[in-house]
């Protein structure tokens, strides 16, 4: 609390990014965890909640006649523009937020105060939802070729690896330890994915400390052991996901890449994915394009092209496809590394797994995949996503890129994934929100020391609870697209990569399709389910009635004609597929050019009470209608409620009031 200089400012204006004419007047609150803007409007009192941990930058702009503008950019790509009447207040808010957005210890993060009102047992259950031992045994491991090793118990060998690692049976502790000494940060080769159909596997590690000529017998034996674990193949691929130039530069620092001459039976391959700094800049450039006010088509397309973002997405996908092909089609095992083996390696291993195994395309499987390739193998969430105040050069959208790869695949294989776009967006949101403990810290070791599981809740349980919101209505577990490998040869052609406005312009609802096919189909499916249930009930009632009438057959009549008529009217009434009705007199719509979307459209769709009130009379704005249908009211659980709206709120009244 001591960081909040100014808990409340009145008469603040929240600007609409698309149309400066539209600004909401309201009150700004700073709490220990959120920035909250409450609109003055008497009825709706629309609220905007932003978690401090979502804030990526705050910019105080030059004071104007109307006040002092404050620009808040968020990690979930929301951009909030406030105008605060007094410069002094603005300064206080600014200084407070600067501090609040950059916590210095983990305990300050939201997950330590977030309380979804679950008891201890429920929390523990939540953490058990994703179990990696279960996952490896699903893959068929341990088996004749692979075993679990406790060489890293107490993080004795590698402090960024999990305590339990899966290694080839022939890799002794001596080999593992020896190999680890020859690898950056001791990240020795360990199993990421095993294909039980053909024994091919994906292993991961960091770069070898080969310099210009160094060798390590144990490391060579380690790779040999990986090859032997796949008796059907006489070589393995070693994939270095860096551009060749970067890898060569590393040799001068005593690091580098495997020399094919020193390792028997490896095929070495570079797949150039750029490093975190290039990616950070690329995202920055793309976001600048997204933020342009009414850009022309060429501004936008050139900006997108110049950012290089989609090129990088493609590079990651290409690497994933290469590996998936090697495993599925050639039956060859692959060792993947980059420099430290926690960024590009994680991206590529998880894309490949996703292509290979339909399980990872289910909701549960996807959680397992992130847990396996990202959380357990020490992806540095804290550094990359800037949860605690730290070196800005460590920040990079590494997992964002992976999430986008998944979305690009979903666009091309619409029936292949059990989950929908919303699921991805919410996961991205929570990687930054620090509302759940899953992604805290930089490694499993740190999480264990912080006792994360005892003190925070798991995101996976939260998502699992709201499963229906995240279902892809086109997914059927018996559909051909959900079986086996997503055939990489069919997969991404260059031109198929698209800008993901659902993510990067997530909060500009006016830019998105006004009707959502997903939500529509989800509503239809839910109705179908209810119809199935009703059919059963009606069937029973009918059977009972018929039985009782059979017993009571004294009376004969033919009321069919009349009831047929009535029956018809029944069906007419119940044709609930009639259009969502809207009111015609939405006076609140200011006239605006068609190019400007209106975020509030959906909020203005009226309830059934107003349906009859449409006034055909020609008032000045009589055709100020909108064809936007309120899809949220059709979606099963009431909700396009994105976490920005719900994340804090469900639990935060207390925090809010306490301030």
């Amino acid at each position, binding site marked *: 609390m001591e960081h909040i200089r100014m808990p409340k400012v009145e008469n603040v204006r929240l600007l609409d990014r698309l149309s400066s004419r539209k600004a909401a007047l309201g009150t700004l609150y700073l709490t220990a965890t959120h920035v909250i803007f409450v609109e003055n409007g008497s009825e709706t009192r629309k609220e905007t909640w932003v978690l401090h941990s979502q804030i990526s930058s705050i910019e105080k702009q030059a004071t104007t006649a109307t006040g002092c503008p404050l620009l808040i950019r968020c990690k979930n790509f929301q951009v909030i523009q406030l105008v605060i009447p007094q410069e002094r207040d603005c300064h206080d808010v600014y200084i407070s937020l600067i501090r609040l957005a950059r916590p210095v210890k983990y305990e300050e993060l939201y997950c330590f105060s977030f309380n979804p009102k679950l008891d201890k047992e429920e929390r523990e259950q939540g953490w058990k939802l994703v179990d990696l031992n279960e996952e490896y045994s699903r893959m068929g491991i341990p088996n004749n070729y692979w075993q679990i090793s406790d060489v890293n118990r107490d993080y004795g060998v590698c402090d960024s690896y999990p305590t339990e690692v899966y290694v080839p049976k022939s890799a002794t502790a001596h080999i593992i330890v020896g190999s680890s000494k020859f690898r950056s940060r001791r990240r020795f080769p360990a199993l990421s994915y095993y294909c039980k159909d053909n024994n091919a596997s994906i292993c991961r590690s960091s770069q070898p400390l080969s310099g210009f000529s160094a060798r390590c017998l144990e490391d060579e034996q380690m790779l040999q052991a990986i090859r032997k674990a796949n008796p059907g193949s006489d070589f393995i691929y070693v994939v270095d996901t860096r551009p060749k130039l970067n890898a060569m530069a590393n040799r001068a620092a005593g690091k580098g890449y495997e020399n094919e001459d020193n390792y028997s039976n490896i095929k070495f391959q570079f797949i150039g994915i750029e490093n975190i700094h290039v990616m950070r800049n690329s995202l920055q450039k793309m976001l600048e394009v997204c933020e342009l006010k009414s850009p022309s088509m060429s501004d936008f*397309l050139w900006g997108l092209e110049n950012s290089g973002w989609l090129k990088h997405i493609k590079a990651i996908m290409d690497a994933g496809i290469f590996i998936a092909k090697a495993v599925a089609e050639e039956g060859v095992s692959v060792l993947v590394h980059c420099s430290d083996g926690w960024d590009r390696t994680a991206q590529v291993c998880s894309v490949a797994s996703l292509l290979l195994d339909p399980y990872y395309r289910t909701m549960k499987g996807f959680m397992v995949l992130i847990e396996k390739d990202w959380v357990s193998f020490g992806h540095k969430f804290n550094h990359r996503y800037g949860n605690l105040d730290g070196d800005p050069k460590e920040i990079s959208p590494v997992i964002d890129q992976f999430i986008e790869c998944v979305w690009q695949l979903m666009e091309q294989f619409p029936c292949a994934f059990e989950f929908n776009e919303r699921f991805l967006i919410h996961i991205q949101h929570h990687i930054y929100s620090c509302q759940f403990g899953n992604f805290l810290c930089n490694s499993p070791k740190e999480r264990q020391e912080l006792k994360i599981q005892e003190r925070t809740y798991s995101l996976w349980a939260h998502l699992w609870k709201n499963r229906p919101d995240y279902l892809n209505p086109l997914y059927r577990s018996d559909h051909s697209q959900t079986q086996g490998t997503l055939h990489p040869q069919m997969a991404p052609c260059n031109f198929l990569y698209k800008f993901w406005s659902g993510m990067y312009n997530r909060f500009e609802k*006016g830019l998105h399709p006004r009707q959502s096919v997903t939500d529509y189909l989800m509503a*239809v499916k839910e109705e179908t389910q209810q*119809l199935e249930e009703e059919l059963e009930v*009606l069937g029973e009632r009918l059977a009972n009635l018929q039985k009782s009438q059979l017993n009571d057959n004294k009376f004969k009549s033919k009321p069919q004609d009349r*009831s047929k008529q*009535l*029956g018809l009217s029944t069906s007419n009434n119940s044709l609930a597929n009639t259009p969502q009705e809207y009111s015609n007199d939405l006076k609140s719509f200011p006239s605006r050019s068609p190019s400007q979307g209106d975020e509030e459209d959906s909020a203005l769709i009226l309830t059934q009470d107003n349906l009859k009130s449409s006034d055909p009379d020609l008032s000045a704005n009589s055709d100020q209608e909108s*064809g936007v249908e309120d899809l949220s009211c059709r979606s099963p659980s009431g909700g396009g409620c994105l976490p920005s709206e719900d994340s804090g709120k469900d639990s935060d009244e207390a925090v809010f009031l306490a301030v």
Partner: protein
Amino acid sequence: MEFAELIKTPRADNVVLHRPFYLAVEGTLCLTGHHLIFSSRRQDNAEELWLLHSNIDSIEKRFVGSLGTIIIKCKDLRIIQLDIPGMEECLNIASSIEALSTLDSVTLMYPFFYRPMFEIVEDGWRCFLPDEEFELLSSATDEWRLSCINKEFSVCPSYPPVVIVPKSIDDEALRKVAMFRHGSRFPVLSYYHKKNGMVMMRSSQPLTGTNGRRCKEDEKLINATLRPGKRGYIIDTRSLNVAQQARAKGGGFEQEAHYPQWRRIHKCIEREGASVLVHGTEGTDSTLQVTSLAQIILDPRCRTIRGFESLVVREWLQAGHPFQQRCAQSAYSNSKQKWEAPVFLLFLDCVWQILRQFPCSFEFNEQFLIMLFEHAYASQFGTFLGNNENERSKLKLQQKTMSLWSWVNRSEELSKFQNPLFEANSLVIWPSVAPQSLQLWEGVFLRWNRPSKFLDEAHEEMISIIKYNKELQAKVNALRRQLAQLETVDRMQENLRHTQLGIVSPLGSSSVSKLHTVSAEAGTLTSTQLYG
């Protein structure tokens, strides 16, 4: 002329066909007067490709030894490759295709030879007549009239015989207005917005020239369409610069001083319940794009299949968009004339963009738009032949060719073009035109270059989800009916028993109202399911 003269080698064997995403197939190639036909000789899985010569946009030849290769690029943007053994055969075939795909005479085109194999339920040439359109209009307003001034195409060669004009303007005045407008395209009604009585008219540019010529009747006509106190906009689809330059060639634009209720704007369309007059230079291209897109946005009828067909007929065919000139060649052609331009395709792309943003508001699907694109460029039907109604009538298309609509509007075909997600939406649909909201129309531009299997499967899945839902709904309704029936019987039996026992039951007459309750319940139940 005999087609046979043009076909030097009618048939070649051992030809190999290459297409993206398909394995190469070997087979026989045949040339007929209007088609290139390739059939694989495989017994198990015979495959045939029929390509209209008129669909071929360009053709390239290559030789490696005596093996010739022909690369055919089509107006529908498909590219195929044929490997033909024998240099002479290959050359002959290439030159035949070239000749057959660039026939000069319209009457040699396939529509004049095509004999339909389907039963004609409704003659497409008799659909969408101006009279019907006017009847709809008269139910809403009496300020407009049908004018037959152009009966023999004598006033404006690119207008249809019948047009809708303000009632207060007589034919004599129209003739004078026609003299003042480029190509005699005087202002006519394009769309009447019933909700507020505002109208959209279209015309060509006024011939003001450099010395600011005026036409009293033109001013009267345009002003007559506005009620007192109302404003209107003249939307000049050209930039101000281009419009100003047009004056040097005798064209120009309206001076606001002479049209006091009107404001002239260039390219920007506002939204405030005002009437508009749209024109560019000739009023046959961008003008029609603008007026027809506006109708898609404003008028739910245009988002139905028939309504869209009617829009294409009214605002493109009858309005005199020169299809024959614009669609003579396409993207791949090396010999494009300056009048070739994908104006209609651009319009269809815009419709697709709106369809993507409002996927539940259109009765038709993407395939419907793609079909129209194909037929505008190459077709067995006469609908898109000619440049205007005048030419079409001279070609006697109605007598000699089949209408596209006769084929499309049969239930077998319609089912392919129906959007399973459609729910009539009576509202205005404002699309977003931000760059982030616009996408490449993959269905056309990547159609032959992307694997579509997974997208097709998704579409099928969508259809089956909705179909199953409708089936269940029907079943539930049937059961409800049956139950209601039985319950009535039950009730009557009970009453009878009561009567027999000498008790007058107050429920006796209420069995019907009971049924009403049931049906009402049924209604609310489903609607809460949907809306709840």
